[in-house]
Protein backbone atom coordinates (compact mmCIF):
# COMPACT_ATOMS: atom_id res chain seq x y z
CA UNK A 1 0.00 0.00 0.00
CA UNK A 2 2.59 2.68 0.82
CA UNK A 3 4.24 2.11 -2.53
CA UNK A 4 1.09 3.21 -4.29
CA UNK A 5 0.81 6.38 -2.26
CA UNK A 6 4.29 7.76 -2.93
CA UNK A 7 3.93 8.28 -6.68
CA UNK A 8 0.62 10.05 -6.05
CA UNK A 9 2.23 12.68 -3.87
CA UNK A 10 4.98 13.39 -6.34
CA UNK A 11 2.95 15.94 -8.37
CA UNK A 12 3.35 18.50 -5.60
CA UNK A 13 6.66 20.24 -6.25
CA UNK A 14 8.56 21.88 -3.47
CA UNK A 15 8.20 25.59 -4.13
CA UNK A 16 10.47 26.79 -1.37
CA UNK A 17 13.59 27.17 -3.50
CA UNK A 18 11.73 28.84 -6.33
CA UNK A 19 10.14 31.20 -3.88
CA UNK A 20 13.52 32.03 -2.42
CA UNK A 21 14.97 32.81 -5.83
CA UNK A 22 11.99 34.90 -6.83
CA UNK A 23 12.20 37.00 -3.72
CA UNK A 24 15.93 37.35 -3.98
CA UNK A 25 15.62 38.77 -7.47
CA UNK A 26 12.67 40.87 -6.42
CA UNK A 27 14.67 42.39 -3.59
CA UNK A 28 17.52 43.11 -5.96
CA UNK A 29 15.29 44.88 -8.44
CA UNK A 30 13.43 46.83 -5.81
CA UNK A 31 16.67 48.11 -4.38
CA UNK A 32 18.36 48.94 -7.67
CA UNK A 33 15.43 50.34 -9.57
CA UNK A 34 15.11 53.92 -10.52
CA UNK A 35 11.89 54.56 -12.30
CA UNK A 36 11.90 55.55 -15.89
CA UNK A 37 11.18 59.26 -16.02
CA UNK A 38 8.18 60.69 -17.78
CA UNK A 39 8.65 61.09 -21.46
CA UNK A 40 6.84 63.55 -23.58
CA UNK A 41 9.02 63.18 -26.60
CA UNK A 42 10.97 60.15 -27.60
CA UNK A 43 14.63 60.98 -27.41
CA UNK A 44 17.34 58.55 -28.42
CA UNK A 45 20.50 59.80 -26.85
CA UNK A 46 23.82 59.30 -28.60
CA UNK A 47 26.52 57.02 -27.25
CA UNK A 48 29.87 58.14 -25.93
CA UNK A 49 32.71 56.79 -23.86
CA UNK A 50 32.10 59.33 -21.11
CA UNK A 51 32.25 57.68 -17.72
CA UNK A 52 30.77 60.28 -15.40
CA UNK A 53 27.34 59.22 -14.19
CA UNK A 54 24.61 61.81 -14.34
CA UNK A 55 24.10 63.22 -10.85
CA UNK A 56 20.86 62.24 -9.13
CA UNK A 57 19.99 65.47 -7.47
CA UNK A 58 19.63 69.12 -8.46
CA UNK A 59 19.20 68.63 -12.14
CA UNK A 60 17.69 71.04 -14.57
CA UNK A 61 17.09 69.07 -17.69
CA UNK A 62 16.61 70.56 -21.09
CA UNK A 63 15.48 68.11 -23.71
CA UNK A 64 15.61 68.72 -27.42
CA UNK A 65 13.80 66.38 -29.76
CA UNK A 66 14.80 65.75 -33.39
CA UNK A 67 12.47 68.49 -34.62
CA UNK A 68 14.18 71.02 -32.40
CA UNK A 69 11.38 71.36 -29.86
CA UNK A 70 12.66 72.19 -26.43
CA UNK A 71 11.33 70.77 -23.19
CA UNK A 72 12.22 71.82 -19.70
CA UNK A 73 12.11 70.28 -16.27
CA UNK A 74 13.59 70.46 -12.80
CA UNK A 75 13.90 67.44 -10.60
CA UNK A 76 12.80 68.28 -7.14
CA UNK A 77 9.29 69.09 -5.98
CA UNK A 78 10.26 71.93 -3.73
CA UNK A 79 12.10 73.66 -6.56
CA UNK A 80 9.13 73.10 -8.85
CA UNK A 81 6.82 74.82 -6.43
CA UNK A 82 9.07 77.84 -6.16
CA UNK A 83 9.52 77.87 -9.92
CA UNK A 84 5.79 77.90 -10.52
CA UNK A 85 5.31 80.99 -8.37
CA UNK A 86 8.23 82.67 -10.07
CA UNK A 87 6.71 81.90 -13.48
CA UNK A 88 3.42 83.35 -12.32
CA UNK A 89 5.12 86.57 -11.25
CA UNK A 90 7.23 86.86 -14.34
CA UNK A 91 4.50 86.28 -16.91
CA UNK A 92 1.63 87.88 -14.96
CA UNK A 93 -0.41 84.71 -14.98
CA UNK A 94 -3.57 84.42 -12.90
CA UNK A 95 -3.00 82.88 -9.48
CA UNK A 96 -2.83 79.12 -9.26
CA UNK A 97 -4.97 77.27 -6.77
CA UNK A 98 -3.62 74.71 -4.40
CA UNK A 99 -4.58 71.80 -6.59
CA UNK A 100 -2.77 73.23 -9.59
CA UNK A 101 0.37 73.79 -7.53
CA UNK A 102 0.17 70.21 -6.38
CA UNK A 103 -0.22 69.06 -9.97
CA UNK A 104 2.78 71.05 -11.12
CA UNK A 105 4.94 69.47 -8.46
CA UNK A 106 4.44 66.18 -10.25
CA UNK A 107 5.28 67.47 -13.71
CA UNK A 108 8.76 66.23 -14.49
CA UNK A 109 9.08 67.86 -17.85
CA UNK A 110 6.99 70.15 -19.98
CA UNK A 111 7.18 72.01 -23.25
CA UNK A 112 4.62 74.62 -24.14
CA UNK A 113 4.49 78.41 -24.11
CA UNK A 114 4.24 79.40 -20.47
CA UNK A 115 1.03 81.36 -20.98
CA UNK A 116 -0.70 78.00 -21.27
CA UNK A 117 0.42 76.89 -17.84
CA UNK A 118 -2.96 77.45 -16.17
CA UNK A 119 -4.73 75.62 -18.94
CA UNK A 120 -2.28 72.74 -18.75
CA UNK A 121 -2.63 72.33 -15.00
CA UNK A 122 -6.39 72.55 -15.36
CA UNK A 123 -6.62 69.49 -17.58
CA UNK A 124 -7.24 66.17 -15.95
CA UNK A 125 -4.10 64.09 -15.37
CA UNK A 126 -5.32 61.29 -17.61
CA UNK A 127 -5.93 63.70 -20.49
CA UNK A 128 -2.68 65.51 -19.99
CA UNK A 129 -0.68 63.33 -22.33
CA UNK A 130 -2.87 64.65 -25.13
CA UNK A 131 -2.18 68.27 -24.24
CA UNK A 132 -0.21 69.75 -27.14
CA UNK A 133 3.41 70.30 -26.20
CA UNK A 134 5.04 72.12 -29.09
CA UNK A 135 8.13 73.04 -27.13
CA UNK A 136 9.17 76.10 -25.19
CA UNK A 137 9.68 79.11 -27.45
CA UNK A 138 13.35 79.95 -27.88
CA UNK A 139 13.29 82.16 -30.94
CA UNK A 140 14.93 85.58 -30.93
CA UNK A 141 11.60 87.38 -30.64
CA UNK A 142 10.21 85.23 -27.90
CA UNK A 143 12.61 83.32 -25.74
CA UNK A 144 10.98 81.85 -22.67
CA UNK A 145 13.71 79.34 -22.00
CA UNK A 146 16.01 82.15 -20.98
CA UNK A 147 13.51 83.18 -18.29
CA UNK A 148 12.99 79.62 -17.15
CA UNK A 149 16.72 79.09 -16.70
CA UNK A 150 17.01 82.22 -14.61
CA UNK A 151 13.92 81.51 -12.51
CA UNK A 152 14.87 77.89 -11.91
CA UNK A 153 18.33 78.89 -10.82
CA UNK A 154 16.90 81.46 -8.49
CA UNK A 155 14.61 78.80 -7.05
CA UNK A 156 17.54 76.45 -6.55
CA UNK A 157 21.03 77.88 -7.06
CA UNK A 158 22.61 74.45 -6.96
CA UNK A 159 20.93 73.23 -10.11
CA UNK A 160 23.18 71.66 -12.66
CA UNK A 161 22.24 71.71 -16.26
CA UNK A 162 21.84 68.63 -18.37
CA UNK A 163 21.13 68.83 -22.05
CA UNK A 164 19.48 65.74 -23.41
CA UNK A 165 19.23 65.90 -27.14
CA UNK A 166 18.34 63.28 -29.70
CA UNK A 167 21.07 61.79 -31.87
CA UNK A 168 19.48 63.35 -34.90
CA UNK A 169 18.79 66.78 -33.51
CA UNK A 170 20.60 69.22 -35.73
CA UNK A 171 23.48 71.16 -34.28
CA UNK A 172 21.64 74.37 -35.07
CA UNK A 173 18.88 73.53 -32.59
CA UNK A 174 21.33 72.39 -29.93
CA UNK A 175 23.34 75.51 -30.44
CA UNK A 176 20.27 77.69 -30.02
CA UNK A 177 19.84 76.23 -26.54
CA UNK A 178 23.54 76.58 -25.76
CA UNK A 179 23.50 80.19 -26.85
CA UNK A 180 20.49 80.79 -24.61
CA UNK A 181 22.34 79.23 -21.70
CA UNK A 182 25.35 81.38 -22.37
CA UNK A 183 23.22 84.49 -22.35
CA UNK A 184 22.42 83.54 -18.76
CA UNK A 185 26.14 83.14 -18.08
CA UNK A 186 25.89 79.38 -17.93
CA UNK A 187 29.06 78.09 -19.54
CA UNK A 188 29.20 74.69 -17.96
CA UNK A 189 26.71 71.99 -18.70
CA UNK A 190 26.40 68.29 -19.27
CA UNK A 191 25.45 66.48 -22.40
CA UNK A 192 23.55 63.32 -21.61
CA UNK A 193 24.84 60.31 -23.48
CA UNK A 194 24.46 56.62 -23.08
CA UNK A 195 27.45 54.52 -22.18
CA UNK A 196 29.59 52.72 -24.70
CA UNK A 197 32.41 50.46 -23.71
CA UNK A 198 35.63 52.37 -24.04
CA UNK A 199 37.83 49.30 -24.06
CA UNK A 200 36.50 47.92 -27.32
CA UNK A 201 36.82 51.31 -28.92
CA UNK A 202 40.26 52.20 -27.72
CA UNK A 203 43.35 51.04 -29.41
Amino acid sequence: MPKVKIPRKSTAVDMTAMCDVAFLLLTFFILTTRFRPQEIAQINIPASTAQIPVPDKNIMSIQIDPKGNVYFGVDDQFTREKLLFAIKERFNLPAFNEKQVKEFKLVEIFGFPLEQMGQFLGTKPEERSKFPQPGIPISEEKNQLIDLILLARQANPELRIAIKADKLTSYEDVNAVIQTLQKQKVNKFNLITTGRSASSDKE
Partner: protein
Amino acid sequence: MAEMIVADKGGKGGKKRAKKQSTRVDLTAMVDMAFLLLTFFILATTFNKPKAMEVNKPAKDENEKKEDLPAIKQSKTYNIMMGKNDMLYCYVGSDDDPNVKVDSTFFSRSGLRSLIKDRQRAVAQKWGNQDELFILIKPLPDSKFRNMVDVLDEMAITGVKRYAIIDDFNEIDELIIKQSGNRKPDAIKTANVVVPSSK
Protein backbone atom coordinates in the same frame (compact mmCIF):
# COMPACT_ATOMS: atom_id res chain seq x y z
CA MET B 1 -6.10 26.20 3.70
CA ALA B 2 -2.97 24.30 2.78
CA GLU B 3 -3.80 21.65 5.26
CA MET B 4 -7.18 21.14 3.75
CA ILE B 5 -5.86 20.69 0.23
CA VAL B 6 -3.25 18.21 1.31
CA ALA B 7 -5.82 16.35 3.27
CA ASP B 8 -8.14 16.21 0.26
CA LYS B 9 -5.52 14.91 -2.08
CA GLY B 10 -4.18 12.31 0.18
CA GLY B 11 -7.62 11.56 1.50
CA LYS B 12 -7.23 7.84 1.36
CA GLY B 13 -4.33 7.89 3.75
CA GLY B 14 -6.48 8.72 6.70
CA LYS B 15 -6.27 11.51 9.24
CA LYS B 16 -2.93 10.60 10.71
CA ARG B 17 -1.05 11.22 7.46
CA ALA B 18 -2.80 14.50 6.89
CA LYS B 19 -1.65 15.78 10.22
CA LYS B 20 1.93 14.87 9.53
CA GLN B 21 1.97 16.90 6.33
CA SER B 22 0.23 19.88 7.83
CA THR B 23 3.47 21.90 8.30
CA ARG B 24 3.81 22.20 4.51
CA VAL B 25 2.37 25.40 3.13
CA ASP B 26 1.43 25.71 -0.50
CA LEU B 27 3.87 28.30 -1.83
CA THR B 28 2.52 28.48 -5.38
CA ALA B 29 0.51 31.64 -4.81
CA MET B 30 3.42 33.30 -3.09
CA VAL B 31 5.76 32.45 -5.96
CA ASP B 32 3.20 33.76 -8.43
CA MET B 33 3.03 37.04 -6.60
CA ALA B 34 6.80 37.30 -6.29
CA PHE B 35 7.24 36.79 -10.01
CA LEU B 36 4.50 39.27 -10.77
CA LEU B 37 6.24 41.95 -8.74
CA LEU B 38 9.56 40.92 -10.19
CA THR B 39 8.26 41.36 -13.73
CA PHE B 40 6.93 44.77 -12.83
CA PHE B 41 10.23 45.93 -11.43
CA ILE B 42 12.22 44.53 -14.33
CA LEU B 43 10.05 46.40 -16.80
CA ALA B 44 9.91 49.61 -14.82
CA THR B 45 13.61 49.86 -14.22
CA THR B 46 16.08 51.75 -16.38
CA PHE B 47 19.10 49.62 -16.82
CA ASN B 48 22.11 51.47 -18.04
CA LYS B 49 22.32 54.77 -16.35
CA PRO B 50 23.00 57.60 -18.77
CA LYS B 51 26.42 59.16 -18.65
CA ALA B 52 27.19 62.82 -18.67
CA MET B 53 29.69 64.51 -20.90
CA GLU B 54 30.86 67.74 -19.45
CA VAL B 55 31.25 70.73 -21.72
CA ASN B 56 32.77 74.02 -20.74
CA LYS B 57 32.07 76.83 -23.10
CA PRO B 58 34.15 79.98 -22.95
CA ALA B 59 32.56 82.81 -21.05
CA LYS B 60 31.22 85.41 -23.40
CA ASP B 61 32.35 88.90 -22.77
CA GLU B 62 31.27 91.53 -25.21
CA ASN B 63 33.84 94.03 -23.95
CA GLU B 64 36.77 91.74 -24.50
CA LYS B 65 38.79 92.58 -27.54
CA LYS B 66 39.72 89.76 -29.82
CA GLU B 67 43.24 91.12 -30.19
CA ASP B 68 43.87 90.39 -26.52
CA LEU B 69 43.65 86.69 -27.12
CA PRO B 70 46.96 85.14 -28.05
CA ALA B 71 46.95 83.84 -31.59
CA ILE B 72 47.70 80.19 -32.05
CA LYS B 73 50.13 79.21 -34.75
CA GLN B 74 48.33 77.53 -37.61
CA SER B 75 50.87 74.76 -37.65
CA LYS B 76 49.68 73.72 -34.21
CA THR B 77 46.05 73.57 -35.17
CA TYR B 78 43.74 71.16 -36.83
CA ASN B 79 40.32 72.05 -38.14
CA ILE B 80 37.43 69.62 -38.12
CA MET B 81 34.16 70.66 -39.68
CA MET B 82 31.05 68.56 -39.33
CA GLY B 83 28.69 68.74 -42.26
CA LYS B 84 25.47 67.07 -43.18
CA ASN B 85 25.16 63.31 -43.73
CA ASP B 86 27.80 62.60 -41.07
CA MET B 87 30.59 63.98 -43.25
CA LEU B 88 33.70 65.47 -41.78
CA TYR B 89 36.04 67.94 -43.43
CA CYS B 90 39.46 68.21 -41.89
CA TYR B 91 42.29 70.47 -42.84
CA VAL B 92 45.45 72.07 -41.54
CA GLY B 93 45.49 75.80 -41.90
CA SER B 94 48.62 77.55 -43.02
CA ASP B 95 50.07 80.93 -42.16
CA ASP B 96 51.60 81.66 -45.52
CA ASP B 97 50.57 78.99 -47.99
CA PRO B 98 47.12 79.65 -49.49
CA ASN B 99 46.81 76.08 -50.74
CA VAL B 100 45.07 73.89 -48.24
CA LYS B 101 44.45 70.19 -48.54
CA VAL B 102 41.07 69.17 -47.23
CA ASP B 103 40.33 65.60 -46.20
CA SER B 104 36.73 64.56 -46.21
CA THR B 105 36.16 61.59 -43.98
CA PHE B 106 33.76 59.72 -41.74
CA PHE B 107 33.62 58.74 -38.13
CA SER B 108 35.68 55.62 -37.94
CA ARG B 109 38.93 54.31 -36.67
CA SER B 110 40.56 54.55 -40.07
CA GLY B 111 38.91 57.89 -40.76
CA LEU B 112 38.87 60.64 -38.22
CA ARG B 113 40.90 58.89 -35.59
CA SER B 114 43.83 58.09 -37.79
CA LEU B 115 43.81 61.65 -39.13
CA ILE B 116 43.97 63.01 -35.60
CA LYS B 117 46.74 60.58 -34.73
CA ASP B 118 48.71 61.60 -37.82
CA ARG B 119 48.29 65.21 -36.86
CA GLN B 120 49.39 64.52 -33.31
CA ARG B 121 52.54 62.89 -34.62
CA ALA B 122 53.23 65.77 -36.97
CA VAL B 123 52.80 68.30 -34.18
CA ALA B 124 54.95 66.24 -31.85
CA GLN B 125 57.68 66.15 -34.47
CA LYS B 126 57.61 69.87 -35.04
CA TRP B 127 56.99 71.17 -31.53
CA GLY B 128 58.26 68.32 -29.42
CA ASN B 129 55.00 67.58 -27.68
CA GLN B 130 51.77 66.29 -29.11
CA ASP B 131 49.79 68.20 -26.51
CA GLU B 132 50.63 71.37 -28.40
CA LEU B 133 47.97 70.34 -30.89
CA PHE B 134 44.91 72.54 -30.81
CA ILE B 135 41.78 71.25 -32.49
CA LEU B 136 39.13 73.61 -33.75
CA ILE B 137 35.76 71.92 -33.97
CA LYS B 138 33.38 73.67 -36.27
CA PRO B 139 29.94 72.12 -36.45
CA LEU B 140 27.78 73.27 -39.31
CA PRO B 141 24.05 73.80 -38.71
CA ASP B 142 23.05 70.67 -40.60
CA SER B 143 25.30 68.35 -38.66
CA LYS B 144 23.63 66.24 -36.01
CA PHE B 145 24.00 66.34 -32.27
CA ARG B 146 25.44 62.84 -32.53
CA ASN B 147 28.32 64.19 -34.62
CA MET B 148 29.20 66.72 -31.98
CA VAL B 149 29.19 64.08 -29.25
CA ASP B 150 31.26 61.76 -31.44
CA VAL B 151 33.91 64.37 -32.13
CA LEU B 152 34.13 65.34 -28.46
CA ASP B 153 34.38 61.66 -27.66
CA GLU B 154 37.17 61.27 -30.19
CA MET B 155 39.05 64.04 -28.38
CA ALA B 156 38.83 62.03 -25.19
CA ILE B 157 39.88 58.80 -26.89
CA THR B 158 42.88 60.25 -28.72
CA GLY B 159 43.85 62.28 -25.68
CA VAL B 160 43.75 65.69 -27.30
CA LYS B 161 44.09 68.16 -24.47
CA ARG B 162 43.15 71.37 -26.19
CA TYR B 163 40.11 71.84 -28.35
CA ALA B 164 37.25 74.26 -28.76
CA ILE B 165 33.87 74.34 -30.39
CA ILE B 166 33.79 77.32 -32.64
CA ASP B 167 30.92 79.01 -34.36
CA ASP B 168 32.61 81.41 -36.71
CA PHE B 169 34.21 80.57 -39.96
CA ASN B 170 37.13 81.85 -42.01
CA GLU B 171 37.48 82.00 -45.80
CA ILE B 172 38.66 78.42 -46.11
CA ASP B 173 35.71 77.21 -44.11
CA GLU B 174 33.30 79.17 -46.23
CA LEU B 175 34.78 77.68 -49.34
CA ILE B 176 34.35 74.18 -47.93
CA ILE B 177 30.78 74.96 -46.91
CA LYS B 178 30.02 76.10 -50.43
CA GLN B 179 31.76 73.20 -52.14
CA SER B 180 30.19 70.52 -49.97
CA GLY B 181 26.67 71.85 -50.34
CA ASN B 182 26.23 72.73 -46.71
CA ARG B 183 24.72 75.94 -45.50
CA LYS B 184 26.05 78.55 -43.18
CA PRO B 185 24.39 79.23 -39.86
CA ASP B 186 22.10 82.21 -39.58
CA ALA B 187 23.98 85.32 -38.68
CA ILE B 188 22.28 85.86 -35.33
CA LYS B 189 23.51 82.67 -33.80
CA THR B 190 27.13 82.89 -34.83
CA ALA B 191 28.61 85.44 -32.46
CA ASN B 192 30.89 83.43 -30.26
CA VAL B 193 34.35 83.63 -28.82
CA VAL B 194 37.23 81.27 -29.45
CA VAL B 195 38.72 79.88 -26.28
CA PRO B 196 39.68 76.30 -25.55
CA SER B 197 37.60 74.25 -23.19
CA SER B 198 39.66 73.15 -20.26
CA LYS B 199 39.96 69.43 -19.97
